[in-house]
């Protein structure tokens, strides 16, 4: 069952085509990795799907429904939530309050929101930091919090933008473990990631973007052997087989 499908998704910034008629779909309960060199249009694609950028052309279907005209908050209510590459921790609010803001997406009751936020903190392993201000967190904790806050909105589709970038190997394992546990709880995940070990090990399927175009799609195994992908990453000159 396709949870998300984009058809000819195109986003232009003036003359620059950031996403060039991208067709992609996400199956329910899978982890889809989105990779590609810097400037390939991965984050732009996320922003289009999450409703932060209006599309230049093309359409987006979520659960079979055209959501192209909904704004970001409306899409979050539908169940599409993205985290930010540059973490948007609410610095003047505590960890618990940060997550409560997410939980308010499904309830207007403060006590309920607090309970749900506490459950999410438990899940994310942030319980002992619940009363710490956002400003006082390490980058690893902020990335965890970013995910926890998005989880609290009870999404169906979670778009994770570089959640392990800048973390040390131990922290990466913790983060990846959480990604798997999120999927096991029934949430579909699309993740943009540059750390190849991470994205290869956790993804069910990969989509590769270069200069706004989808050049390859398949299992991590297939993608890592694909000629086009290797060329895109290494360049024509260093691509061993093309010599």
């Amino acid at each position, binding site marked *: 069952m396709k949870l998300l499908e984009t058809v000819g998704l195109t986003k232009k910034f003036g003359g620059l085509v950031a996403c060039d008629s991208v067709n992609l779909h996400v199956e329910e309960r899978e982890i889809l990795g989105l990779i590609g060199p810097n400037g390939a249009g991965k984050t732009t694609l996320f922003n289009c799907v999450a409703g932060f950028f209006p599309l230049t052309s093309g359409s987006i279907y979520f659960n079979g429904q055209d959501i192209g005209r909904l704004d970001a*908050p409306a899409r979050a209510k539908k169940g599409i*939530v993205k*985290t930010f590459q540059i973490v948007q921790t609410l610095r003047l609010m505590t960890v618990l309050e940060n997550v409560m*803001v997410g939980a308010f*997406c499904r309830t207007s009751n403060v006590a309920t929101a607090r309970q749900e936020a506490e459950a999410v903190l438990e899940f994310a392993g942030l319980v002992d930091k619940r009363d710490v201000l956002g400003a006082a967190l390490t980058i690893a904790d902020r990335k965890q919090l970013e995910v926890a806050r*998005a989880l609290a909105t009870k999404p169906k589709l979670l778009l994770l933008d570089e959640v392990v970038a800048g973390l040390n190997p131990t922290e990466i394992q913790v983060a990846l473990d959480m990604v798997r546990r999120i999927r096991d709880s029934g949430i579909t995940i699309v993740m943009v990631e540059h750390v190849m070990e991470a994205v290869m090990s956790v993804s069910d399927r990969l989509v590769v973007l270069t200069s706004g175009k989808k050049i390859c799609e398949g299992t991590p195994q297939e993608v890592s052997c694909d000629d086009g992908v290797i060329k895109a990453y290494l360049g024509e000159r260093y691509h061993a087989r093309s010599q």
Partner: protein
Amino acid sequence: MSLRQQTLTKIAQKWDMATITRWGVFALVVAGALVAPLTIFKAPFHQHILIMVLTYGAMATAWNIIGGLGGQPAFGHTVFYGVGAYITGLLFVNWQITPWIGMIAGGIVAVLVSIVIGLPTFRLRGHYFAIATMGTGQILLQVALSAKTITGGPLGLPIKVLPQGLYVFQFHGTKLPYYYIILGLFGLTFLVQYLVQQSRLGYYLRALKESHEAAQSLGINTTYQKLLALGISAFLTALIGGFTCQYLLFVDPVHVFAMSVSAKIMLCTILGGVGSIYGPILGAVLLLTLSEGTRAWLGGQGRGVDLFIYGSLILAVVVLEPFGIVGIYRKLRSRLVRRSKSETA
């Protein structure tokens, strides 16, 4: 453990020393506010200062909802103040409608004005909202000055003096009823602010103040939440406008639509502590005592000295302690706590 013991420990847990102290201080302040004009501040001039403190305290508290909690640059709250005053005055002068209803009507009109300002500008980033709030004040000032047949133009709108009573909202010879009414209005504003802060709206405002994008990504319709906060703030400010109309028995267009009123409202909050629920009234106590006090003590010679003094105060706050009086208090407290800890260790 018996049931009685359980309930007792529950009560003991809920009422620890900090909570008892907090409620004790709160009760003392309320009692003090109730008896102050009957005991220490019997002189009409002193009572006038108290009324001004509460008037600006209430408006600053209302402003704090959108400007402090929500962090929106609402530079023109005098618009709502003026609308409240004019609607209350006009309804009474033309149709003898009691100012109590007039105040609420003024509040409703103020909410409509806030929607007109907020709906187009809250969608945009940057300073459009700030400019719109300032601009609306100037437009309404020109309207009030030109529509002479309705508003009395530059001469203002005098309220007909009638035999005193609660219904006509007029009291002659004593300021006490005005004091208790404005105390009640301040109480209402403070309560609303507290409830907003504790509710989902309060969390949403704090979130969108820090990061618009994070807020939107979490399903917050930022435009709607800001409109809601501005509407609540506008309604409360208009009530105070209606009160002032009855207190002065005169609506002066240049006063009620003056930029300086907006500035004073914001300065009270900034001086006291932006975003804190006690900040606005603390700022109002300091600022209004200073400005009304210096104006009286220095008489005609001292014109503008009050502005000079609180201009310097604001500079000091911005440079030394951006969270104002509340910020100074918090720093002192944490220093004391640290010292007592190191002594016991």
